[in-house]
C-alpha cells in the first residue's frame, strides 16, 4: 500500500514533464457570463514549466525517503498542481488561483518542519499574502481597464493606469522574488523549511516571481520600452529595477558571507542570484532577457543541487553550523563533488553554464551602456567567491569539529541520485552553452517578439559582442590538466603522504585535537573591517519594518479615537461624512 502510494507520488511529481510533453493547443471555457477561463502554454510559461519539470522529481526523491511524512507529500502534490495551473493560465483568474494554491501549500509545507518557529511562519505568510493581495488588486485594476481577465497587452493605458498596474503587479512579484527590502521572509523560512523542500522553495517557487516579472512587460504595448523614456541605451524604468536588483545582490552577498549556518547562507545567496535576474529583467533587451532566463535555469539546477547536498549533510551529521562540520571530503565524496560543481555554477566560473548566463548579462549591460550597474554586479559576483569557498571549505575541508562530522557516512541514495543527475546536467550545459540557448531560450525570445540570440552550434555561445566555445574550453583545460599531472608524476622524487591531519606547518608547534584549527566559522568575519562592507552589514531592514509597524499602530490609534462609546459622536460623524460627501458632489459637478 505504502509502496503504491509512494510510486503514485513520484508519478505525480513527473506531471510537469508529462504536461510539457503532451500539452498542445489550449483549453477554454466560460466561467460565468462574459468571463472565459483560458489555459494555454506560452513559450515563456513553457520555459518555466521545463524548470519545474527538472526540479520537481529530483526534490521528490529525497522526500520519499522513509519515514515519509504523508501530509508533506500531499501538500507537495497540491503545490505542484498549483504551480502548473499558474503556468498554464491564460487568464488572471486561473493565475491567481494557482498563485494562492502555491502560497498556501508552501506555507503548510513550511509548517511541517519541526524547526519552523512562530516568527518565521508569520513573516512567510504575511509577505506572501501581501503579495497575493497586491496581485488581486492589480488584477481588479486590469479588469476595470479591459473588462476581461485574459492575459494580453493593454490597448492604450494612460500613465497613471500603467503606473498603478506596474506598482501593484511589480510589488507582488518582487515580494515573491525577494528583492530588498522585501526579502526578510526568505532567509529564515528557507532555513527552517524541511531540508529537501528548501531546495524546491529556492529552486522553483522563487522562479514564479521571475516568471511574473518577465510576464509583466508583456501587459504593456511595446513592453515598457518607451515608458518613462530611455536612459543611455536602455529603458529608464528598467534602470530603477536594475538598481534594485543589483543592490539586492550586493547586500545579500555580504549577508551570505557573514552567515554561520549552511542553509541560511544558501538562502541569502538565493536572494543575491535572483537579484541578478531582476537586474537582467530591468535591462530588458533580448540579450538581457536571454541572460535572465539562463540565470534562472542555472539557478534552479544549482540551488536544487546545493540544497539537496546540504540536506544530505544535515541528515548524516545532524549539524548545520559551519563551525561544527569539517573534513567530510573523505566521508561524503559524492556530496563533495555535488557541492563543488554547485559552487562552480553558483560563482559563474567557466566552463559551467553559470558563466554563460553571467556573460550574457554582462554583455547586455555593456550594450545598454549601464556601466555603473555592471561594476556593482561585478562586486556582488566576485564577493560571491568568498561564500562559495566558505560553503565548500567549512563542511568538507579543514578538520572535523564535532562527533557527528567525524563519524558521518555518505548520504543515502535518494539524496545522491538527484545530485548526480544535476551535476551531469550542469556539465552538459557547460560543455554546450549554445544548447540551452537553442532549445530553451530562443523559443521564448521569439514568443516575446524579441531577436533570438541564435547559436551557430551547440558548443558555441555567440552574441554580437563575441562569444566562446564551451567544448574547446573544456578540452583545453582537460588536456592541460592531464598533461600537467602526467609530467609532474614523471619528475623524479618521492611523494609522501602526511602521517596525520595534524602534521601541519604550525610554527614548529605540534597541533593536537584540542587546537582550534578549523577556520569555518571565522571566515569572512574580518570583512567587516572594510568600511563599506561593515556599513552594509550593520544595516538591517528590521528597523524599517519596526518603524512601519509603529506608524501603523499610531494610525490605528488615531482611527480608534473616533470610535468612542457615545452614540452622539457616532451620529455626529455620520452627519459630517454625509455633509462632506454632499459638498464634494456639489463642488464636482452639482447635484
Amino acid at each position, binding site marked *: 500500500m505504502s509502496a503504491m502510494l509512494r510510486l503514485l507520488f513520484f508519478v505525480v511529481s513527473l506531471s510537469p514533464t508529462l504536461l510539457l510533453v503532451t500539452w498542445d493547443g489550449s483549453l477554454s471555457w466560460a466561467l460565468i457570463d462574459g468571463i472565459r477561463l483560458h489555459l494555454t502554454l506560452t513559450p515563456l510559461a513553457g520555459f518555466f514549466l521545463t524548470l519545474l519539470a527538472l526540479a520537481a522529481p529530483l526534490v521528490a526523491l529525497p522526500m520519499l525517503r522513509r519515514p515519509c511524512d504523508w501530509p508533506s507529500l500531499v501538500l507537495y502534490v497540491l503545490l505542484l498542481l498549483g504551480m502548473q495551473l499558474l503556468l498554464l493560465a491564460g487568464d488572471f483568474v486561473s493565475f491567481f488561483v494557482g498563485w494562492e494554491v502555491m502560497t498556501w501549500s508552501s506555507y503548510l509545507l513550511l509548517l511541517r518542519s519541526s524547526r519552523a518557529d512562530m516568527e518565521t511562519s508569520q513573516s512567510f505568510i504575511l509577505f506572501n499574502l501581501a503579495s497575493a493581495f497586491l496581485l488581486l488588486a492589480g488584477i481588479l485594476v486590469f479588469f476595470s481597464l479591459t473588462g476581461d481577465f485574459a492575459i494580453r497587452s493593454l490597448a492604450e493605458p494612460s500613465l497613471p493606469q500603467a503606473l498603478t498596474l506596474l506598482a501593484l503587479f511589480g510589488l507582488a512579484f518582487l515580494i515573491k522574488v525577494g528583492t530588498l527590502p522585501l526579502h526578510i521572509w526568505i532567509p529564515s523560512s528557507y532555513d527552517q523549511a524541511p531540508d529537501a523542500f528548501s531546495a524546491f522553495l529556492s529552486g522553483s517557487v522563487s522562479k514564479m516571481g521571475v516568471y511574473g516579472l518577465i510576464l509583466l512587460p508583456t501587459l504593456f504595448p511595446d513592453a515598457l520600452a518607451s515608458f518613462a523614456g530611455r536612459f543611455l541605451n536602455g529603458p529608464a524604468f528598467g534602470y530603477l529595477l536594475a538598481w534594485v536588483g543589483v543592490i539586492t545582490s550586493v547586500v545579500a552577498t555580504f549577508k551570505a558571507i557573514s552567515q554561520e549556518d549552511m542553509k541560511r547562507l544558501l538562502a541569502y545567496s538565493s536572494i543575491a542570484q535572483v537579484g541578478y535576474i531582476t537586474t537582467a529583467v530591468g535591462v530588458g533587451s533580448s540579450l538581457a532577457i536571454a541572460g535572465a532566463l539562463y540565470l534562472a535555469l542555472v539557478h534552479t539546477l544549482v540551488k536544487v543541487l546545493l540544497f539537496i547536498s546540504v540536506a544530505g549533510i544535515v541528515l548524516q551529521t545532524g549539524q548545520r553550523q559551519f563551525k561544527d562540520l569539517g573534513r567530510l571530503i573523505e566521508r561524503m565524496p559524492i556530496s563533495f563533488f555535488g557541492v563543488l560543481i554547485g559552487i562552480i555554477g553558483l560563482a559563474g566560473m567557466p566552463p559551467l553554464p553559470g558563466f554563460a548566463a553571467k556573460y550574457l548579462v554582462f554583455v547586455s549591460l555593456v550594450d545598454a551602456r549601464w556601466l555603473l550597474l555592471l561594476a556593482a554586479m561585478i562586486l556582488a559576483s566576485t564577493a560571491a567567491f568568498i561564500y562559495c569557498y566558505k560553503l565548500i571549505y567549512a563542511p568538507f575541508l579543514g578538520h572535523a569539529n564535532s562527533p557527528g562530522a567525524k563519524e558521518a557516512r555518505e548520504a543515502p541514495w535518494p539524496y545522491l541520485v538527484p545530485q548526480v543527475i544535476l551535476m551531469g546536467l550542469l556539465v552538459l550545459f557547460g560543455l554546450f552553452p549554445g544548447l540551452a540557448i537553442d532549445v530553451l531560450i530562443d523559443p521564448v525570445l521569439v514568443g516575446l517578439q524579441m531577436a533570438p540570440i541564435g547559436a551557430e552550434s551547440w558548443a558555441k555561445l555567440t552574441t554580437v559582442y563575441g562569444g566562446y566555445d564551451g567544448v574547446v574550453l573544456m578540452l583545453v583545460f582537460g588536456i592541460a590538466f592531464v598533461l600537467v599531472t602526467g609530467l609532474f608524476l614523471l619528475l623524479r622524487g618521492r611523494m609522501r603522504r602526511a602521517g596525520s591531519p595534524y602534521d601541519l606547518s604550525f610554527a614548529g608547534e*605540534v597541533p593536537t585535537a584540542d587546537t582550534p584549527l578549523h577556520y569555518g566559522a571565522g571566515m569572512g568575519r574580518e570583512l567587516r573591517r572594510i568600511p563599506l562592507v561593515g556599513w552594509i552589514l550593520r544595516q538591517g531592514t528590521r528597523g524599517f519594518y519596526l518603524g512601519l509597524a509603529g506608524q501603523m499602530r499610531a494610525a490605528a490609534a488615531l482611527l480608534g479615537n473616533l470610535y468612542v462609546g457615545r452614540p452622539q459622536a457616532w451620529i455626529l460623524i455620520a452627519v459630517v461624512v454625509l455633509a462632506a460627501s454632499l459638498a464634494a458632489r456639489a463642488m464636482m459637478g452639482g447635484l
Partner: protein
Amino acid sequence: MYHKTQCEGFQCEQAMLEVPGDAETVREGVLDKLIAWMRQRSLFVLAYGTGCGAIEMRPLMTSRFDAERFGIIGAATPRQADVLVISGYLALKTLRRVIRSYEQMQEPKYVIGLGSCTINGGMYWDSYNTVKQVDRYIPIDIYVNGCMPRPEALIEGFVALQQRIKQGGKAGYHQYRENIDWYKANQRKALGEEMPPAYTYDWYHAGGVA
C-alpha cells in the same frame, strides 16, 4: 637532559657520524650534476632565530651583506626551506621546535649551526637547560663557530655549504634517515615527555612512499 654514557658525545659517536660522506662514491650523471648546481644556486633559509645569533642574521639579507646575490633568501615556512640555520644556543624547549621544523622540511635539506653554542654549548656549557651538542639531535652540515660569528663568517659558511652541495654525495639528511633510531633515542632522552608524537617521524622507518 645531558647524560653521561660509557663514552661521551664526540668520543665514540663522532666516528660513527663521520664515516660516510666522501667515503661513499656515488656515480652521478650530467643531470645530477646540473640539479646539484641549481640546488646550490638557490638556498631558501629557515632562520631559527631564538638564540643571540639571530641578530647577526638580519644584516645578512640587507644591503650591506646582500646574501641574495648567492641565491640565498628567507623562506617563510619549513615546507619551503632548504637550509635551517640554528642561530646559537638551544634550550630544551626550543629543541623540540627545531626538531619539528627540521622534520617538516623537504629533502634535500641542510642545517647550519651558527655560533659556538651549537658545537659545545659555548658560554652556556654548564646550564641545566641548554643543549650542548646539537648534532646529537639533528645532523648539522656546516658549523660556523664564533661567539658571535660576523655575517661574513656566516656567508663563508653558506659558500662552503654550496661547495658541498655542488660536489654531491651524502649530506646530513642522509645520516638522519639512516641513523634515525640513534637520533630519536637521543631526542627522547633529552625531551622525555615532551617528545613529539610518533606520526611526525615514523615515516622515516616506513620508507615513507605515499
